[in-house]
């Protein structure tokens, strides 16, 4: 469980695991990490939208990151990171939360990522030998819409 760090620095990242990959999300953007409660499904929603959850009387759209990256389905009761984007609240599943660490040197991702990861992570960091993909929540949320919807 994430603890509140009183350090005000923008190089702090919440490091966790989605599928087999370690990811980092700017700690400033993560409002909380909580276990998944009851999920109300949304008929006809894109596959990656698991449904709606209410956390402390706030309505959130739950995005299953495992579906997004094409790695099956997140377990019920998995952890969720709560974030906001453009005035809307979202919960993103995360399989494991490791720590909040300072990552100083971010580099563009030069390897070609598996299709589900493309467009979600554009930068990465080397954390003591661990490759950490830096995930941009707005990109992740946009990709939950599925491929470009022209209809």
């Amino acid at each position, binding site marked *: 469980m994430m603890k509140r760090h009183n350090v005000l620095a923008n190089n702090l990242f919440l490091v966790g695991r989605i599928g087999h990959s370690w990811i980092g999300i700017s700690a400033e953007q993560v409002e909380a990490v909580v276990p998944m409660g009851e999920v109300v499904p*949304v008929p006809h*929603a894109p596959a990656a*939208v698991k449904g709606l959850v209410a956390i402390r*009387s706030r309505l959130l759209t739950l995005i299953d990151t495992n579906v997004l990256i094409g790695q099956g389905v997140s377990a019920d009761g998995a952890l969720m990171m709560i974030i906001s984007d*453009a005035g809307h609240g979202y919960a993103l599943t995360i399989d494991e939360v490791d720590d909040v660490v300072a990552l100083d040197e971010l580099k563009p991702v030069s390897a070609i990522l598996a299709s589900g990861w493309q467009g979600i992570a554009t930068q990465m960091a080397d954390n003591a030998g661990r490759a950490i993909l830096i995930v941009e929540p707005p990109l992740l949320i946009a990709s939950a*819409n599925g491929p470009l919807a022209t209809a």
Partner: protein
Amino acid sequence: MDEMLREFVGETLDMMEAIGGDLVAWQIDPSDRRRLDSIFRAIHTVKGSSSFFELPRVTAISHAAENILEILRARKNAPDRKSVSIILRAFDHIRALAHAIAQDGFEPEGDDSELLAVLSANFRVSDRDQAERYSRKPSPPKTGQPENESEQPGSVPIEWRSVRVPLGLLDTLMNGVSDLVLARNDFALQLRASGIEPADLAGFDRFSEILSAVRGSVSQMRMVPLLQLFAPLPRLVHSLCDELGKNVSLTVDGGQVEIDREVIESLRDPIIHVIRNAIDHGIEDSEGRLAAGKAATAQLSISGRHDGNRIAIVIEDDGRGLDDDGLIERAIAAGHLTDERVSGLTQAQIANLIFLPGLSTAQSVTGISGRGVGMDVVKANVEKLGGSVRIHNRPGQGVMISIDVPMTLTIISALAIDVDGQGFALPRNVVDEVLLASNDSVQRVEAGGALMVRVRGRMLPLVVLEPLLGLESSGISLSDRALILCRVAGSRSFVLDVPDVRDHDELVIKPLPPTLMSIGLYAGFSLPDNGRPMLLLDVDGIANHAVARAPQSQPVETMGEGEDGSAEQDERWLCYRGWEQSLLSAVPMANIERLIDVNYTQLTRAGGRIVANINEEMVAVDNADFALPNHGSDTGTVRMIWASHEHSHILIPVRDVVQLVPLKMRMPAQEDSKVALGLALFEGDIVEMIDIRRLIERAFAQVKMSDRGEVNVYHDEKAQRFGQ
């Protein structure tokens, strides 16, 4: 005369006309808060719009009158007659000015200081008696001895001031109140979990009451007419035309529709952008138009209307339409599209390419539009509000863009539909009627593989909720299911077949994120008391999915026609046979709330009238030709039409309901007719067209009023009556 000004005058006069009945009723019973509220709203609207047109006299008078009404509203006691007569004077004065503006095209010069003095003096203690004098005789002021009568505690003046509040603060307040409601619901849930029923706690009840009162006033604070958005458009169009050498006639409609202030603010830029685009790129110059066989002057229209709890703004031009090939070319160039995918695109999909980032419709970048801020930004801004933008392109004939946004980001009253334990909400104001599937008046029909329902002469498509949502059918037997008649503009109404429906309290609606908005079936979501998120169904979206598919050519006409949504309904009348009548009667559909079967046990004769107790609400029954049986016969029901006008309601007992039809008045009613407007023909039978307002007034009149047709109020006469 300026088009907008003409509209303002027309609207003002209409409103004066409409409010006439309220004024009369208010005079009779000054303690009637509802009348006072509607009078206040009318004057508030006049004030708001008059300031746009720089009509200082109208603004000053309406402002002063509004101040008084504000004070009257804040008081517990009923207003004294003096205040009433002063308000009447102000109304008459505004009406006279509006007439003059209509005639001359500008506000006549004149001095209203006397009236204004009366209006403001009325609420200064020292000048109270002076005002009294004014109201009796609108001639030179005289100072006199203060009268003791004016020292009643009820008329102690309250200093009225307006305060400028930053929008951000208002938003914070609004969000705070919404969150408070959600937190209250959460609290109730926790109480229940610990075995306490919140309704049993007096304190909690009181808390809820206060909260809903506060919520009401906060939402009201934020509502403004669409006119605020539309008012600057004629000037914008004019200057664009000058600059670009084009001829455009702009039609604006629906300025009276009220919408949340925040929504308006966020719509301003998108709408201006769309209009600029239309004039710059869509509309041809006069030669081009003539060459294309069109009138030299282009038509551009913008209209707003209520659609359930949403506002639809439609902007339509009759220019050249979008250039499909150009769009495809640019979409490929911008990397959004590959050559292979082009062939599979439908017309609608091609038009939608315009919403992709980086696609400007301009052949070249001009100073007016095409500066790189494109339709993608418009779309993003509207979606941020929980709205949607749709485009309909008719190559060579024009473009129609409809922007659909929630009326407010706040609270609606809703029906709750249960599908296997999951709740969905449906805004109550789009629901015409709820029927049990076993009701005799409904008939399921199948034709060409489609299900339809015949209800009182209307044949409507049937949409079954579970398959629509891709859910398992719930095991409710067919006859126990409920049918919801959903009203959708553009004759796309349908019947929603649901397993179960129940009434629900008001719901705080939050806008959906774009991901869920784009599904097209939901208009928002909410967190009700039980703590389980609930989706708000979007009837317009459901109609798009399940109803409007058949006639491909229709969308343009159907969207274009919706002026304010009422035009179409106003012309439809419900024909019925009254309780003891052989003659057919008809009431305007717009006045009908619903049809209900009232049990005799719900009816009581009291206070010289018959009243019905419907879910603890007392509604008067029109008893012109209806009487309660003296004894027995407690069983059985009477079918009634629940009609309303403004905020008054009445139940009309009917023997049978015939049909919903368009009627045309063939002969006006004689002047002394109590409730009839005129006579029409329906399938060869004579139909009496009933004016609900008069019917309600007849039912509620405590004092016999001679001439119902006359809604004008002559203040002199009234002032005399009150002066006694």
